[in-house]
């Protein structure tokens, strides 16, 4: 048995090494380096070891920069709106698809989920054409209802909303499937007991379904927040942050600052600010998840 123990000790190293080691190398070390760079002035062309230390200057600069502040605000608006719209919609559609006796709902679920698995670069490209004010179909549909043509991505008031709608279309199916999965976990006899007690369907939904979906709901909120705070591709492809910075988001601003302006210090500071926002939200939401389960 002693041999066996030695064996597992060796294998602890062998088995953990690649997985944990690669995470340490490609996640933990770079985070620390990003933090380090954020206190320096660096254009990446000079050696890493010789970059000058500038203290909090990068942070002071980004927080004094209206463009970054707009990007931070847009990112938060985008995420809050995504959660506020997608969560209720996923619940509505999920409850509907789970309960309906109409045939073909299985196929509807498939159609709804499909956009989630295709590259969001492709989605952005296609939606760019759908939104096209002149050649796109959306404005024709609006005209059927006597609504004037909209500029969509061309308007400071509508561009961010247009990106939210695009994201909604792509991801709502994923969250709906999570809701449906949560629903299958709820024992049917709860509903039977409720209907014997004379509860209406709305009451059953309100008092049985929604409370028991709390775990799924918290999960959706966390993932949705983390994912939407990182939005990049549709901005990069469709708007480059415009018009007038109305769709500039933190990751896009960071990318431009890093790879076009070669200001790695400020870019790293931007990264850290957003990372902090994500961490705080994730911790708060994880607490909620812990309470729910």
């Amino acid at each position: 048995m002693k041999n066996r123990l030695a064996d597992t000790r060796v294998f602890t190293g062998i088995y953990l090494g690649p997985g944990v080691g690669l995470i340490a190398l490609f996640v933990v070390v770079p985070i620390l380096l990003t933090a380090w760079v954020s206190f320096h002035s660096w254009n990446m062309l000079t050696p890493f070891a010789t970059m000058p230390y500038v203290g909090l200057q990068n942070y002071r600069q980004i927080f004094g920069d209206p463009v970054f502040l707009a990007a931070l605000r847009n990112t938060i608006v985008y995420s809050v709106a995504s959660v506020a719209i997608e969560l209720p919609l996923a619940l509505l559609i999920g409850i509907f698809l789970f309960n309906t006796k109409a045939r073909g709902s299985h196929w509807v679920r498939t159609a709804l989920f499909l956009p989630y698995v295709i590259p969001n670069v492709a989605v952005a490209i296609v939606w760019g054409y759908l939104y096209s004010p002149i050649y796109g179909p959306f404005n024709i549909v609006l005209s059927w209802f006597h609504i004037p043509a909209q500029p969509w991505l061309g308007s400071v008031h509508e561009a961010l909303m247009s990106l939210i709608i695009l994201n909604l279309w792509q991801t709502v199916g994923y969250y709906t499937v999570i809701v449906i999965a949560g629903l299958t976990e709820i024992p049917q006899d709860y509903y039977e007991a409720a209907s014997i007690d004379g509860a209406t369907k709305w009451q059953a939904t309100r008092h049985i379904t929604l409370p028991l979906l709390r775990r799924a709901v918290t999960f959706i909120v966390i993932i949705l927040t983390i994912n939407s705070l990182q939005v990049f591709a549709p901005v990069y492809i469709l708007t480059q942050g415009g018009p007038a910075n109305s769709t500039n988001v933190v990751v896009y601003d960071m990318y431009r600052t890093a790879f076009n302006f070669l200001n790695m210090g400020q870019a790293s500071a931007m990264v850290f600010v957003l990372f902090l926002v994500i961490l705080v939200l994730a911790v708060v939401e994880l607490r909620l998840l812990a309470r729910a389960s």
Partner: protein
Amino acid sequence: MSLILRGSKRSWAYIWLGVITVISVFPFYWMVSSSLKTSKEIMALPPHWWATHPSLQAYSTVFHVVAFARAIGNSFVVTGTATLGILVTSIMAGYVFAKYRFRGKETLFTAVLATMMVPSFVTLVPLYYFFNRLNLIDNYAALILPNIGNAFGIFLMRQFIAGIPQELIEAARIDGASEWTVLWRVITPLLGPAIATLGLFAFVFQWNRFLWPLTVVNTPNMYTVVLALNSLESYTSSVKFANVVMAGAVVGILPSVLLFVWLQKYFIRGVAMTGIKG
């Protein structure tokens, strides 16, 4: 409100199903119909709802403009290798976290889990610098390596392996099996559903990656499908080419769509597993 609840009227249900389907499918429809239009028709005002003279011209053009075949090959190499790597490292680490005992295990596991919260953009600048200094820009290694250690995979595998009875492992050990044999011959064959789930999700995630490949790939020869799509966007300069871009988009999403249609039940089961039981 009651429309959406249990036992709603059939006809209303069909109307809602119809609405959801139309909204879900319409962008796909528009993509395909635009790709079949001629460059003359794509510029018609108001736009036509379908291609009146369907043509495959745009498809032959797109393969001339962008090396799509090469990009699809690159994507398969990168995604396939990374997925395999994730599966192997996750099974190994998951096994240790589930079945071994050593000091600091819980702390290490928590630390690994915490890295799930780290979005990829956080590591972009230093990782880029490293790969550049190592001369690995425009190299498969840059696309594959950083993704192989995967906290979510380790977590998923630990959950699954923890559910495998300890007696099974002990029995194998008594029969003289080495730790290597125990993991790969005894445990792994029982992990079918977990492997399918993790494999699928890793595959889709890697296939669709954008920010990292955009940063470490410069040469068109090394483009993944997503980068080929992106470059297509920058190569076209007028609405006249919308059919070509749309044809590219159709080609670019085809592998994902086929994979999904083929394995949809695993996808849906996987989402349920990660979201609810996870």
